[in-house]
C-alpha cells in the first residue's frame, strides 16, 4: 500500500480555515483534522502591548490542517489550499507532504484508501 496515500499538512492563517473547509468540502475532501498551533518564519513574531510599552511574542497563531488523501488528489488539494488560504503577505503558510504507510478506520478496522 506504500505510496498510495499522502498526508498533507498545511499551516495556514486561522481566519482562512472556514472558507477553505467549505471549498475542500465542495470538492469532496471532507475528512480532516485541525490543530491550533503557533508559528514563525518569514513573518516574524508580533509586538503586543503591555500596560505601557511593548513586548514581543515570537510566535503567531496559525492553524494546522492535516488531511490524508490518495496520491492522485494531492495536487488538487494543494491547489485549493494555495487558492483559498492566500493573502499574498508573508505568513500565509506552508504545505508539507508526507508519506503514509497505512491507514486504519478505528470503527471497522478497514485499511488503506477505503478507510479515509
Amino acid at each position, binding site marked *: 500500500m506504500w505510496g498510495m496515500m499522502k498526508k498533507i499538512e498545511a499551516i495556514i492563517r486561522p481566519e482562512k480555515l472556514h472558507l477553505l473547509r467549505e471549498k475542500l468540502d465542495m470538492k469532496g475532501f471532507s475528512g480532516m483534522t485541525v490543530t491550533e498551533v503557533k508559528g514563525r518564519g518569514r513573518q516574524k513574531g508580533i509586538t503586543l502591548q503591555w500596560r*505601557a510599552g511593548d513586548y514581543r511574542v515570537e510566535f503567531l497563531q496559525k492553524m494546522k490542517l492535516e488531511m490524508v488523501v490518495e496520491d492522485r488528489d494531492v495536487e488538487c488539494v494543494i491547489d485549493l489550499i494555495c487558492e483559498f488560504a492566500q493573502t499574498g503577505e508573508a505568513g500565509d503558510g506552508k504545505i508539507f507532504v508526507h508519506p503514509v504507510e497505512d491507514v486504519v478506520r478505528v470503527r471497522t478496522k478497514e485499511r488503506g484508501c477505503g478507510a479515509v
Partner: protein
Amino acid sequence: MLLSVRSLLLCLLLSALLAGAASAEDGAINAADNAWVLMSAALVLIMIPGVGLFYGGMVRKKNAISTIIFSFAVMSIISLQWILYGYTLVFGKDIGGLIGGLDFLGLAGVGMGVKEGLTIPSLTFMIFQAMFAIITVSLITGSYVERIKFSSFLVFSLAWATLVYDPVAHWVWGGGWLQQMGALDFAGGIVVHITAGVSAMAVAMVIGVRKGFGTDPMEPHNIPTTVMGAALLWFGWFGFNAGSALAANGIAANAFVTTNTSAAAAATTWMLLSWRHRAPSALGIVTGAVAGLAAITPAAGYVTPLAAIPIGIVAAIAGYYAIILVRGSGRVDDSLDVLACHGIGSTWGVLATGIFATIGASGLLAGNAHQVLVQLLAIAVTWGYSFVVTFGLARIIDAVMGLRVRDDEESVGLDISQHGEGAYM
C-alpha cells in the same frame, strides 16, 4: 515578666472570648452609618480577590494560581493578625506618636458598643479597617510574582503588616505624629498605596528579576481575568473611599463621586497615551483606572468632583511613564508595576490633596500653602520608612529562609512547584 505577659494575654483572650463583645452600649449607634460602613467593608473585601484576579491575568499561565491565591492567603492570615494584635498596634492608645498600645489586644474592649467619636460600633470600625490592612499587603504581591517561595511570602506578609503597615497606619490614622501634624490622607494614599508601592519596589530589588526577564516574553495570559479584577477594584473602591467617611453623609457622596471621576479621567488618559504610542490598550485602560483610583484615595473626601479630573489625568501620565522608566532600566523587575501604579499614583494624590483640598480642610488653592509642606513631609517619611524597613526585612528573610524558589521550580511554574496544582486543564 514573660510569664506575666503571657497570663495577661490569656486573661484578655479568655475574657474577650466569653464576653468581650457583649458590653454593648447601643445608645449612640446610627443604624444607617453602621449599615453604610459594614457594606463598605464588604465592598473592600471583594477588592482583595479582585487584586488577585487583576494580577493573575497578567502573569504567565504557569503562575496563574500562585498569583491569584496570594491575595486569598493574605486575606486569611492578615484577618487573624489584625484581630489578634494589628488593630491595637494601630488604634490602641498612642505611645509617643509612634505606635498604638496593647489596649485592644485580641479585640479586648472592642465590642458592639459605639466607637468613641463615631456613630458606629467599635467592631464595625475595626473590621472596616481590617480590610485596609489586608488589601495593602495584597497589593505588594504584584512585585514578586512568578518567583517567590510561598513560605517566604507568608512570613514576609505577616512581618510587613506588623513592621510597616501597622506603624504607618498609626502615624496617619491612629493618632500618631503625622496625624498630629495635620497630614491629610482620606482613605489611604499614604497608608495603603505609598507603603505598598514603595515596598513593592524594595522587595523586587532584593528578590531579583524573573528568569528570562528582558528576553523571554512575559505575556499576560488572560486579559479578561484582569479586566474582571479591575472591575471588582473599581466597584469595591467606592467602599474604600466613600466608606472612609465613616458615615452615610454628604462627604461619603462626594468621595463616591470623586472616586468615580478620577478613575474615569485616568483610564481615558492612559488609553490616549497608549494610543499615541500605538493603539488604545485594554490593559492600559484598566491600569489607568487603577492608577486614578490610587491617586484619588488620599483626596477623595477633601476635594471637589472636578478636582478629581486633573488628579486622575496626572496620575495616568505619571504612572505611564513610570512604568516605561522602571521597565526600561531593565535592572529591577517590579513585575506588575506596583510602584508605578500605586506608589507614584498615590504620591501624586497625597500631594494633590495638599493642593486641591477644599472640603473639611484647606489646601494650596484654598490659600493654605502649609498643607503642601505637610503632605510632602508625610510622603518623604513614608517613602523612606517603607523602603528601608522592607528592604531590610526582605534581606533578612532571604538570608534566613530564601526568598526565591529554585531555578527549576521557577521554570516549571509556581502553580506546580509551590502548590501542586495546575490552573487550567
